[in-house]
């Protein structure tokens, strides 16, 4: 039991001391048994305060410390390090949360907040009294990373991981890499095309011996913990045998085209967001990667027509399942584009209402003249915030990329075709940063911007063959303004991938917006609560390409730092079995989600055994033990019960 405990009560500037009488708290706890000293401090986390604590530990020979400050989520590790530097075991430190769960939550009642703070600190002292010195468990780790999603973010993460010395498995659900970027074609701000960017990255991925790329591949299950995951993937075949490299063979390409023409199956083409059709045998665009066609077996009738022209067709290929041994996972699964409900702004009820992604593909599919459904398009209305910033619907967030993306598409259309007039019906243009120059360019081009608020969205009408968009325009003193247009483009939101089983398999928590959640946007922006699983790109929140790349590289850097030594320190908070009490009823082993508990022989009887490297310390086995033979280190009965006693006072 610890009896020279140091107590530090943080004012957090004024965040705590405005509502909690920190002096009073200090006085109340200073007299407790085992407390050697109690101090208040302006910023416990500041360097000078940290040094003071270290000096106290040394000079006063403290055997445990308690810091009452903010949530342990922010500074648990900061103060554990302080303890280490002072010569204490980091687990002889307890952090008490008197900010988020006290001063802020009870800022309406300072008197009670102070009483609660005293209770919380006392409970913390009790807990630290019974704390044990623990040593983190070192486990060997595999310096290999699974990157899920071979879009720009995923490929970029893979390339840098490899350059930093980590081997990479890169898996992609589609048969072609590049993700959304390859669909976007012309990109801001560099005006490169998506194909160019994807080509550059794919070339590096392909040449890199440290990167193994699997296309048509999905993650199906995952076992293990940080440093030692086993991921199971299934690989859907392309049904094209290797060597069908059209890139180097014009004659082969001709035959491929004939084979495609011969295919009797015609289905909507998801690459073109369903504004065009594709065959069961397909390719995406002319420099697709890998440069090899694929067959969509879900729609293929196995008629064999294509094989007459293309000898590489091999309908007998089989699905494969592989186990990958990896140390960490980076998810870069990207996003879906929002699908508006039918009839919203005439979507699917009028034949000239499309989404922005469809419009971008339309520009790519039309060379000389912009036409859609045989109609020559001159006047285009863009309706913004479709599926973003909803007041009624679920998507409260701003999708970040769409203002710039729509404006960029409008500029592109105007420069590519003659006589285009663009009308932007928006809710306040958000071309942040240097993207503002695109907004300026659109204005100088003669694009007209009309602004509405959330309560008065525009209406799209069809009258005597003319499509009109009418809005109460904030910029024209709230007058009703109408534009007669040939095409309505709905500027749709970024939404999380609809069929993303990755979240379920990896158990990544999602936020209110249903995107994957990081631990903290500033402190741990690419880390998730599950050790060894990182997120980057648009699966985390709407991002543009540059931003996705940045987060991908950040994730790569963190994953490499974690695995490069090929060992990982694990928390020692794991379950412990009391050999005397255990009677091996199997309840704990059954409930353990990680299969960490097995039977073993001890002094002639069967008892449970916990595998340290597998146990995650969740404690699920605790309550099911009728003998009360299991305790969780750091959460023992003495610790928890003494806390309960203090809190109940």
């Amino acid at each position, binding site marked *: 039991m610890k009896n020279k405990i140091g107590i530090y009560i943080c004012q957090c500037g004024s965040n705590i001391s405005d509502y909690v009488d920190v002096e009073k708290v200090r006085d109340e706890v200073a007299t407790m048994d085992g407390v050697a000293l109690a101090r208040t401090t302006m910023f416990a986390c500041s360097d000078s305060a940290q040094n003071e604590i270290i000096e106290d530990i040394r000079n006063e020979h403290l055997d445990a410390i308690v810091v009452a400050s903010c949530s342990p989520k922010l500074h648990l590790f900061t103060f554990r390090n302080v303890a280490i530097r002072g010569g204490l075991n980091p687990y002889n430190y307890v952090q008490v949360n008197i900010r988020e769960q006290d001063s802020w939550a*009870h800022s309406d009642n300072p008197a009670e907040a102070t009483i609660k703070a005293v209770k919380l600190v006392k409970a913390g002292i009790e807990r630290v009294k019974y704390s044990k010195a623990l040593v983190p468990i070192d486990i060997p780790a595999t310096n290999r990373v699974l990157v899920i999603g071979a879009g720009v973010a995923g490929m970029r993460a893979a390339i840098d991981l490899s350059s930093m010395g980590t081997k990479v498995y890169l898996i992609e659900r589609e048969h072609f890499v590049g993700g959304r970027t390859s669909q976007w074609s012309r990109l801001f701000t560099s005006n490169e095309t998506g194909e160019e960017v994807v080509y550059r990255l794919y070339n590096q991925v392909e040449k890199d011996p440290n990167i193994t790329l699997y296309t048509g591949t999905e993650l199906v299950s995952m076992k293990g913990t940080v440093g030692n995951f086993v991921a199971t993937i299934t690989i859907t075949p392309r049904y094209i045998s290797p060597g069908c490299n059209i890139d180097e063979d014009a004659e082969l390409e001709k035959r491929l085209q004939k084979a495609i023409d011969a295919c009797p199956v015609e289905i909507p083409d998801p690459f073109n967001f369903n504004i065009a059709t594709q065959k069961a045998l397909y390719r995406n665009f002319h420099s697709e990667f890998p440069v090899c066609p694929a067959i969509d077996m879900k729609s293929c009738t196995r008629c064999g027509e294509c094989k007459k022209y293309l000898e590489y067709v091999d309908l007998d290929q089989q699905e494969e399942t592989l186990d990958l041994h990896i140390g960490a996972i980076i998810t870069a699964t990207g996003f879906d584009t929002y699908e508006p409900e039918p009839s919203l702004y005439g979507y699917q009820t009028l034949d000239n209402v499309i989404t922005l992604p469809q419009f971008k593909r339309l520009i790519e599919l039309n060379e000389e003249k912009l036409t859609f459904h045989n109609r020559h398009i001159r006047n285009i209305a863009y309706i913004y915030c479709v599926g973003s910033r909803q007041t009624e619907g679920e998507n409260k967030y701003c999708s970040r990329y769409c203002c710039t993306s729509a404006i960029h598409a409008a500029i592109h259309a105007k420069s590519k075709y003659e006589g285009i007039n663009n009308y932007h019906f928006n809710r306040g243009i958000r071309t942040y940063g240097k993207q503002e120059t695109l907004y300026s360019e659109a204005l100088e081009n003669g694009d007209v911007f009309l602004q509405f608020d959330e309560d008065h969205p525009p209406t799209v009408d069809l009258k005597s063959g003319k499509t009109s968009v009418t809005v109460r325009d904030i910029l024209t003193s709230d007058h009703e303004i109408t534009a007669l247009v040939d095409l309505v483009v709905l500027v749709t939101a970024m939404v999380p991938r609809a069929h993303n089983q990755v979240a379920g398999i990896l158990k990544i928590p999602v936020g209110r917006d249903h995107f994957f959640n990081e631990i903290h946007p500033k402190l741990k922006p690419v880390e998730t609560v599950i050790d060894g699983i990182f997120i980057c790109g648009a699966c985390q929140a709407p991002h543009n390409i540059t931003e996705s790349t940045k987060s991908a590289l950040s994730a790569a850097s963190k994953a490499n730092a974690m695995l490069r030594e090929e060992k990982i320190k694990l928390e020692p908070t794991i379950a412990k079995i009391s050999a005397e009490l255990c009677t091996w009823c199997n309840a704990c082993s059954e409930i353990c989600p990680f299969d960490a508990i097995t039977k073993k022989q001890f002094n002639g009887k069967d008892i449970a055994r916990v595998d340290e490297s597998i146990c995650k310390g*969740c404690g*699920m086995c605790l309550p099911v033990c009728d003998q009360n033979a299991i305790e969780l280190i750091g959460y023992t009965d003495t610790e928890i019960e003494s806390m309960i006693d203090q*809190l109940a006072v």
Partner: protein
Amino acid sequence: MTVDNHANILVFSTEKISDPAIDLAGLLKKHYPASVVTISLPCSSAVKPRWILRAFDKGFNGVFIAADGTDCPYSNECSENTSAIVNKAQEMMKDKGLDPARLKMAAICSVCAEAFVKHMLAFVKSLSEEQEN
């Protein structure tokens, strides 16, 4: 009993899921009585029924398990496991003549600050009313 005469509630929260929500409530200055105190565990399925009984013994009016529910990073069966604990504890409470309604459980997601505060206000109210009766 604290100065404002609110019912004392012990909350078992979880470090990764419900505790962040309780933090968030504070961050957003959403108020609930200060007679609510929290002990944080790795998972809501780790609460021993004896701890719950101990809390009632020591004078808590209510115990609330802020469960991980489907967000649990450890197991898909967390909800069931936590419910089992609650059932077991309630049986033990009945044996001791305690009203099982004094133990409550609800899933609190990592951003469910509002839900948490609502649960607390309602629970405090129901416990206080019960006391008066």
